[in-house]
């Protein structure tokens, strides 16, 4: 509707402007200024939301057009019907009424002008009214659609709320369950220990009087304790003392020396079953660690270097990692190539990474 009216107005204005351009009239100031003010008023009416301002702009336009038609260029009157429609439709609702008002200016016009004006007025009246009706219907449908959309949205939201609620309760249940679990473990171990204690206490008292009974009680206590032990065993991991080995000792020795020499903390961590490492692999590991540490002390500006020997299932991972400046792009020096060659001799690879500190990882396969 809005764009339709704009286009109507533009066409009529364009007609007037073209007529003015082809006329012999000399100064353009008047026409241009009126055009600009007219545009401003129209745009203003489109932009503002308040009814009062819209009405003011519509009124202003009509006044401007009347003045312009009288003083500057009679063709401005052609825009009157459209703007007049806007203005009068605010006050008069009957189409005939509006039409009557729109056609009144014909009285003051010369016959030839009146004809054109009347034509434009009737045309605008008919087309704008039709368009308005059409749009009203469209708006009604739009409203209904909006209502439906709103309902849909509401239902969807309620659904998601339920979903949220379900998740929440699930989690709460989990927490409760865990709580109960730990409580029970505690209760059970405590209970079995307490049970064993009581039984043993009783056995001690009975020892002299009823040896058999005491024995039975003790048997019970032993059984309860055994079960308890089993439970505890299940939860606690067995810690096996590290196996002292030649290879490892040599690495340890070197690291200690290195650490003392460079005043750097060099922690060594070993994980997994070191027994599977063959002597030849130990040699490669030792040399690569030595090389990597030397490199790190030379270039890294690190404050700590960590060495890790990790025996995985099929792979031994040896990592020397510092917390220094690292290197975005790694240039392969002789040192790295040497490490790679050593690793390759036992079918392993070396990964050098400089993104977060500098790390040299040697991966050696385990052949079982």
């Amino acid at each position: 509707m809005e764009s339709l009216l704009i286009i109507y107005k533009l066409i009529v204005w364009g007609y007037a402007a073209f007529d003015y351009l082809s006329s012999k009239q000399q100064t353009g100031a008047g026409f241009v200024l009126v055009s600009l003010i007219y545009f401003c008023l129209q745009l203003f009416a489109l932009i503002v939301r308040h009814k009062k301002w819209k009405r003011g702009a519509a009124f202003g336009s009509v006044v401007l057009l009347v003045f312009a038609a009288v003083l500057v260029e009679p063709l401005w009157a052609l825009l009157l019907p459209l703007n007049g429609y806007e203005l009068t439709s605010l006050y008069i609702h009957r189409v005939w009424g509006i039409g009557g008002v729109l056609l009144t200016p014909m009285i003051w016009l010369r016959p030839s002008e009146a004809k054109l004006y009347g034509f434009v007025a009737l045309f605008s009246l008919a087309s704008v009214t039709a368009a308005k009706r059409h749009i009203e219907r469209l708006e009604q449908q739009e409203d209904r659609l909006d209502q439906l959309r709103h309902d849909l949205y509401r239902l969807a939201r309620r659904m998601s709320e339920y979903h949220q609620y379900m998740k929440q309760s699930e989690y709460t249940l989990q927490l409760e369950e865990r709580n109960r679990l730990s409580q029970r473990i505690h209760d059970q171990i405590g209970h079995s220990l307490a049970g064993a204690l009581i039984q043993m206490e009783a056995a001690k008292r009975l020892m002299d009087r009823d040896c058999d009974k005491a024995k039975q009680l003790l048997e019970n206590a032993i059984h309860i304790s055994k079960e308890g032990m089993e439970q505890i065993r299940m939860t606690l991991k067995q810690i096996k003392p590290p196996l002292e080995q030649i290879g490892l000792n040599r690495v340890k020795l070197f690291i200690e020396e290195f650490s003392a020499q460079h005043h750097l903390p060099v922690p060594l961590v070993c994980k997994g079953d070191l027994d599977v490492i063959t002597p030849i692999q130990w040699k490669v590991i030792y040399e690569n660690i030595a090389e990597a540490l030397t490199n790190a002390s030379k270039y890294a500006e690190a404050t700590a270097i960590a060495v890790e020997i990790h025996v995985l299932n099929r792979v031994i991972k040896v990592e020397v990692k510092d917390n220094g400046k690292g290197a975005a792009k790694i240039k392969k020096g002789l040192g790295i190539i040497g490490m790679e060659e050593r690793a390759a001799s036992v079918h392993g690879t070396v990964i050098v990474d400089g993104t977060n500190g500098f790390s040299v990882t040697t991966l050696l396969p385990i052949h079982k």
Partner: protein
Amino acid sequence: MNMLEIKQVTKKFGDFIAVDHMSLTVAEGEIFGFLGANGAGKSTTIHMIAGLLRPNAGEIKILGKDIAKHRQFAKRHIGIVPQEIAIYEHLTAYENVEFFAGLYGLRGAELRQRVEEALEFVGLSDKRKSYPKHFSGGMKRRLNIACALAHRPKLIIMDEPTVGIDPQSRNDILASVKKLNEMGCTIIYTSHYMEEVEEICTRIAIIDHGKIIAEGTKEQLEAMITDTKDIWLEIRGMDRLNKEKLQSIHGVKAVQCDDNMVKISSDISVNNLNEIVQCLIHDGVEIRSLEDKSPNLETVFLALTGRNLRD
């Protein structure tokens, strides 16, 4: 015959070594996954296989022929799905596929049919006349794939085909990769999404800093770092649990019970989950939940390199 053989291939960009003496073999009919972090050298390797880059050293063979000598032969049998979407925005979906297929020497009715097939395959048949700029990310990705399919390559190389798209499209793409494989295509698939690679690839190479640090099936890779997998079961009816019977199941190494949680450790190379579950059900044990705590490729990568796949 091996689809692809790479021997001691090295590619340097100035001082930077992108691919470092890489060797690998892909057999016909495999879905071979390249798994590695960004910048690990996956794309460079792929570009060398596709003939976009020339290796500084080493040899690449497609179907037994050295691509340095039989360039056109190799290209004809490869379809590449580049990492970035490489389509012309001013050509319609149909025209994009048609253009690229035409470059592989397809003509006339055959060309039209193949283009239709390719579009059908990625589910863009009804969009054939639309321009890609109106497409969603997933549709663009699918078109990107279609452009590599119409000439029916034997080897399809997909370089991160699922970057930045919604889960639905991603599943579609993974499904179509499997389907392509069933139709007889060998596929090289790179990704830094561990789950994707795990899901579809028959064999996987983990690449880091231009080197293959591990290669094999998913199980083989996992076996590298450990030989046991743990299954955690939450059950009801602990008293009915028969520990001995469980332990006698092939592969089971240990069974630990605790209140209503059971942890069963077993040999990683043995798939005995069914048996375990059957055993439990047979004894009238009710399984409340089951959690598979076995290693995955992510943990493998982490264990081997000390870094995460995605930082």
